């Protein structure tokens, strides 16, 4: 069996890679560990080494872009016969032109991604194993980038972070997961009655040391009953030090990265909501037997989905050198939990009716609160809606969830005044706060999208047809 040459997957976010250059010509001989091809993605370039020795056959020519995991060539050992038509090659020979490479790669895909047998030991570095254990990452689910398919520490971290893009699924956030701590720290924590999950680690990699535990035991008890503290205001209060880890850490990194790496800005627009309020009341009554209660967020999601269809540039991924206008409309909805924020995704919002949206969003919110969201529940969003209206917020600047290019903030439903001629009329109104990535589209089209959302909401019958 010849050895496959894969398009290596360098991280969870890598969606495609290019064989920029073959270092070994088609039919040439390669030694184990010798540089085989230069891999380029929009983010990095690296040399891929041969994982076997033998004769190299190219399945795709240089400068071909394929999906990660696709087979791009084969290495035939000295005793192996090289067939005329390579496995995975389109009929007509091995020298597929770049344009033809895609079907070839696609055909290869099925054969090229051998599922790991259940219980098979995943090659991984000790550090990767340790981290995986700490973070609760299943090594079998991690994409390996190390030599010979070995899972590295970075791979585990990427997998963890990717999982935490949907933070509820991040196992580190699960209560009861042991914090990384030295054996001595554990022993001391037990002796001193310190809950390790409340201790900030100062050791290498945030590991909790003996000193941390003793400081936590000796220093102001962070878990002191708030009532007691309030009753004794004369007592000096100690600062509470909280470790930034788990979901908090992921959110911190992602939010910061979002602001660092995009050109985002926010605009507000008011919407007259009288008709929406009326419609919602009717729908609640209509669906009362089924117990379905559409929220304003559900209605805004539907309006946004329809507007996204009209303005595909807002339903896109900005990937630096190119933009991916997404074919489907999957809307993420931010759900606040005590530990942080999760963003489950309602699928095909443009195609399903309002009732289905209401049912799905309520199901996802329920799962989120129970901490039972699966990875699939959080993957694949093309746009996000975030609601702070229930807290009385009238306007805010939502932060983008890259590579998405838009996020819509839903604010409080408030009493407002509309002028009918010289006569002031009371009406319900709501402000929508749209953050968008100026790299992907400019202010005018963004405003047009937002106006389109407004128009749907002001004539909500259009949401039902």
């Amino acid at each position, binding site marked *: 069996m010849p050895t496959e040459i894969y398009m290596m997957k360098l991280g969870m976010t890598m969606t495609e890679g290019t064989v920029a250059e073959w270092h070994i010509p088609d039919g040439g001989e390669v030694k184990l560990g010798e540089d085989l091809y230069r891999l380029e993605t929009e983010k990095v370039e690296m040399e891929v080494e041969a994982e076997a020795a033998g004769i190299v056959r190219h399945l795709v020519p240089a400068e071909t872009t394929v999906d990660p995991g696709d087979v791009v060539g084969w290495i035939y050992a000295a005793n192996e016969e090289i067939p005329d038509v390579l496995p995975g090659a389109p009929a007509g020979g091995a020298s597929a032109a770049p344009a033809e490479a895609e079907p070839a790669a696609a055909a290869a895909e099925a054969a090229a991604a051998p599922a790991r047998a259940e219980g098979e030991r995943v090659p991984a570095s000790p550090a990767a194993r340790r981290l995986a254990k700490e973070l609760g990452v299943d090594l079998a689910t991690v994409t390996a980038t190390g030599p010979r398919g070995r899972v590295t520490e970075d791979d585990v971290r990427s997998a963890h972070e990717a999982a935490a893009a949907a933070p509820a699924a991040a196992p580190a956030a699960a209560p009861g997961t042991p914090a990384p701590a*030295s*054996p*001595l*720290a554990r*022993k001391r924590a037990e002796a001193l009655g310190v809950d390790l999950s409340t201790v900030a680690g*100062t050791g*290498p990699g945030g590991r909790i040391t*003996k000193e941390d535990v003793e400081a936590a035991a000796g220093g102001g008890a962070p878990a002191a009953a708030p009532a007691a503290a309030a009753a004794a205001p004369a007592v000096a209060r100690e600062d509470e030090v909280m470790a930034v880890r788990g979901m908090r850490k992921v959110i911190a990194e992602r939010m910061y990265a979002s602001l660092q790496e995009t050109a985002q800005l926010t605009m507000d627009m008011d919407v007259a909501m009288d008709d929406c309020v009326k419609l919602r009341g009717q729908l609640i009554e209509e669906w009362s037997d089924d117990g379905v209660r559409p929220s304003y967020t559900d209605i805004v999601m539907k309006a946004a989905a329809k507007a996204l269809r009209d303005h595909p540039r807002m339903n896109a991924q900005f990937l630096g050198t190119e933009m991916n206008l997404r074919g489907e409309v999957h809307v993420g909805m931010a759900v606040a939990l005590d530990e942080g924020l999760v963003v489950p995704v309602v699928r095909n919002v443009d195609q399903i009716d309002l009732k289905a949206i209401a049912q799905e969003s309520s199901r996802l919110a329920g799962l989120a609160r129970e901490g039972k969201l699966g990875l699939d529940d959080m993957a694949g969003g093309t746009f996000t809606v975030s609601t702070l209206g229930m807290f009385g917020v009238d306007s805010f600047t939502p932060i983008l969830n890259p590579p998405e290019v838009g996020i819509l903030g839903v604010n409080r439903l408030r009493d407002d005044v509309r002028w009918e001629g010289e006569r002031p009329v009371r009406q319900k109104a709501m402000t929508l706060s749209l953050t968008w990535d100026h790299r992907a589209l400019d202010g005018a089209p963004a405003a047009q999208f937002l106006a389109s959302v407004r128009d749907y909401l002001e004539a909500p019958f259009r949401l039902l047809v």
Partner: protein
Amino acid sequence: MAEKTFDVVVVGGGPGGYVAAIRAAQLGLEAAVVEREHLGGICLNWGCIPTKTLLHTADLYREMQDAERYGLTAEASFDIEKVVSRSRSVARQLNSGVKFLMRKNKIEVFDGSARLTGGGGLVVEKDGETVADLGADNIIIATGARPRSLPGLEPDGELVWTYKEAMVPTTMPSSLLVIGSGAIGVEFASFYRSLGAEVKVVEVLPRILPVEDEEISAFAREEFEKQGITIHTNATVESLEKGDDSVTATIATEEGTVEATFDRAILAVGVTGNVEGLGLEATAATVDRGAIVVNEWLETGEPGLYAIGDVSGPPLLAHKAMHEGVICVERIAGEPSARPMERRRIPGCTYCHPQVASVGLTEAAAQEAGFNVRVGRFPLVGNGKAIAVGDTGGMVKTVFDADTDELLGAHMVGPDVTEMIQGFVVAMGLETTEAELMETVFPHPTISEAMHESVLDAYDRVLHV
């Protein structure tokens, strides 16, 4: 006006300095080193490395003399010139290795002495001439230390040596007085005794190797005396009278004053920091007892001025200097992972015969610090491998905190212990307790099993006694 500016200029190219420069280069900082003599410093040219070469030669020679025990026949003799010449060529090889590392990391090396001119400026002078005018945001002083001398006992390089002359003898002295029984004194005593010289060691403190655990000191003393080294503790050399080719010492011992004549004397009573001529007066840095005062981040009182290694005080160890260099530079670069050194976990090694190695607190120091101490011991006479190689003169002692079961210190004397102490250093760094150490599988047959047994002994579970 500085003609050349850098992010970091390191003054002194010893192990602390050149490692600091490499780390700086790794972190993308422009780094330079000013060295007045040899890259690699004392360690590599006149310290650690060449003495280890000599001591290895001494070990081989001793074993050759002992050949009959093993059923071998060997005629043992040596040529001191060749012994020294090998030691020098090893030093040269490593010196050029450091030069290569500087080139590889694109670190500019200035030949000369540096003098601070204030405000991040420094001039490099060679033979009284200014050869370079440098500016740097960060200056690291890593000028090391030199032998301390005592009034009346000043070394002259002919009859009264420092380590430097002791390392390159042109003739083999038949008798030698070693003043001071720290690592340097004991190593030279061991070397010259192994080559046949009559050696007397004079120590002002009550025991030799005063920084080591008392039991280890006593054990080592007994071994040295078996080899024929005479040792006076609680004794001082009151005067040295130089003859044509000999020195006569007046030694005040507990039993009274004795006078004895030796071919040569070695002054090994400690070192003092090279703090002079650096222009420190022009800065806010302070000097205390021959060492530049620094905080845990190696910062002096002057912003942007740092000191690492011997010049910043004890312990005077190359590995301490290297580690400080790394910490200091990571601090400069703002690396979030930078952490101050855990000073209690710096190991120390002495390469006399038998070797001595230790880390952490001695039993006495642990008691003094208020720990409820639990001690384990294991003699090498109970170790199969030690018996097999015919070298059972040694023991392993472990010191635990009986309340927390933390490993507080480990002390070893015997063959190869300098290579094994790292096991305990890692264990302490990871804050292991006795449980992990007892669960660890030590390979059989090795001398390292004695480490395991010592831990077992501390918990009354020793197997082979």
